[in-house]
């Protein structure tokens, strides 16, 4: 499961909820990337660096660069520990990084960034961040960039959630509780149909993933179109079929409100020699006879 999530670059959104946290899965993905030899940049906004690095061995920790936006993101302490450029500046610096080799950027969390930055600015920056970077030098290699973003579902409305979904190449929704967790993964690949996968897993204390079961791919759930359709008219207590005579009688029936020329002739009885019709009107004593034509002003 982790390999398929890390197979392509772009934005991977990890959606979690209060009932089921997604930070462990984020850390498991970071561990997997680090073991492949990638450099990891973590933008930490919600937990301290010490708490985030818990569970990583020294070999992993050496590959993880932690940008601390947890301790003093808004420069309240004035102790010089704050990140001077703020969250947006830090993100933009990550866009301009020049280290060679594939890199993974982990955002813990995108929810925090959405609260502190305008949605449009954040989306533009995330889009720029997840573009492959071109190494300087004669080879001009294109390095894959992967952005893992942790997003807390209940904190945002449909607008920002929809905007982030459109940006993401992969969306993982974690749910479940009491040790049983499921990840529903939506893969969006360019020029391909979106595919779904669902995995049951649990994350061990050393941040490795214990996979339980994979549910079938969405496309595999469609039934074979060549199987025979079941005839719904079998085993009925009444007759739905028509015999030949009954069918002919039904077809020759004229419907009472269907207008045809025969019907018109039958209804309108024209007097001999009369080409126009006359209307004979005898007003009552109470009738208000107005010689003016009320439709005079209509321009037909």
């Amino acid at each position, binding site marked *: 499961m982790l390999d398929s999530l890390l197979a392509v670059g772009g934005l991977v959104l990890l959606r979690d909820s*209060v009932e089921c*946290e997604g930070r462990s899965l984020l850390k498991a993905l970071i561990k997997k990337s680090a073991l492949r030899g990638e450099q990891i940049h973590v933008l930490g906004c*919600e937990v*301290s660096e*010490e*708490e985030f690095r818990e569970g990583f061995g020294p070999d992993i920790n050496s590959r993880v660069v932690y940008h601390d936006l*947890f*301790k*003093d*993101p*808004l420069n*309240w302490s004035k102790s010089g520990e704050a990140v001077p450029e703020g969250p947006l500046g830090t993100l933009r610096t990550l866009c301009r990084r020049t280290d060679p080799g594939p890199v993974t950027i982990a955002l813990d969390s995108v*929810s925090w960034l959405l*609260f*502190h930055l305008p949605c449009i600015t954040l989306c533009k920056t995330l889009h720029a961040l997840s573009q492959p970077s071109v190494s300087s030098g004669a080879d001009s290699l294109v390095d894959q960039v992967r952005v893992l973003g942790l997003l*807390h579902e*209940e*904190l945002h409305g449909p607008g920002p959630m929809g905007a982030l979904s459109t940006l993401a190449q992969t969306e993982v929704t974690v749910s479940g509780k009491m040790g049983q967790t499921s990840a529903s993964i939506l893969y969006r690949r360019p020029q391909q149909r979106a595919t779904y996968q669902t995995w049951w897993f649990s994350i061990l204390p050393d941040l490795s993933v214990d996979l339980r079961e994979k549910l079938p791919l969405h496309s595999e759930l469609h039934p074979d179109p060549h199987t025979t359709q079941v005839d719904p008219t079998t085993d009925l207590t009444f007759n739905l079929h028509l015999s030949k005579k009954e069918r002919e009688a039904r077809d020759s029936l004229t419907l009472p409100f269907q207008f045809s020329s025969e019907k018109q002739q039958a209804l309108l009885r024209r007097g001999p020699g009369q080409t126009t019709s006359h209307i004979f009107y005898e007003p009552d004593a109470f009738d208000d006879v107005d010689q003016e034509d009320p439709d005079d002003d209509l321009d037909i």
Partner: protein
Amino acid sequence: MFPELNNLLGTTPDGTEQGKLTLLCDAKTDGSFLVHHFLSFYLKANCKVCFVALVQSFSHYNIVAQKLGVSLTAAREQGQLVFLEGLKSSVDIFFHAQEEPHPLQFLREASAGNLQSLYQFVRDSLKPVDSGETPWKFPVLLVDNLSVLLSLGLEAVAVLDFMQYCRATVCCELKGNVVALVHDNRDAEDKENGILLNGLSHQSHLVLRAEGLATGFCKDVHGQKSVPIPYDTFA
């Protein structure tokens, strides 16, 4: 403190975890008994407590605390308790010199403010003195309650930022605990309160929910166990 609650949480004043955020939450009932519990619990545990009390007067909390076996007056005199009485303080702000920051400074600001001055107050109350020697075990911040801050015009993000700074200082730096109460108005369309509640739930190590039932009070412990245990109302 309530011994039944201690038994449920598996804690005693002598042995309790440090560096944790506990979120208290009440729905259709009054969860303030949880605040009284933790106030007396941490005072008995010999911790330095900073209590941001926005809802009731000092004498109210003192009367309840005395029933639970602690004296807030004595604790305050000894320096163990720093008590911010929101009801009194919010009126004092108008007679306060504008140059000096007041903990509830945001009440004076016309536009959506932040809680930087309140955070500074908490930090100054709980940080150890220069000598480093302190008779108290670890610092504790108690807030009653955060939903009031939303009613006073602050946005949920401002309150979440304040709680983040308190966590960074009290939990991570000073290895203390933070306990805060938030109301849960599930039926009302209060988006800001929902964001505050869910946002804090993500960050909490323990969430204690008190829910009102027709038959009495029922407490649902989320995070460690999720078995609702009905018991009689607290006096």
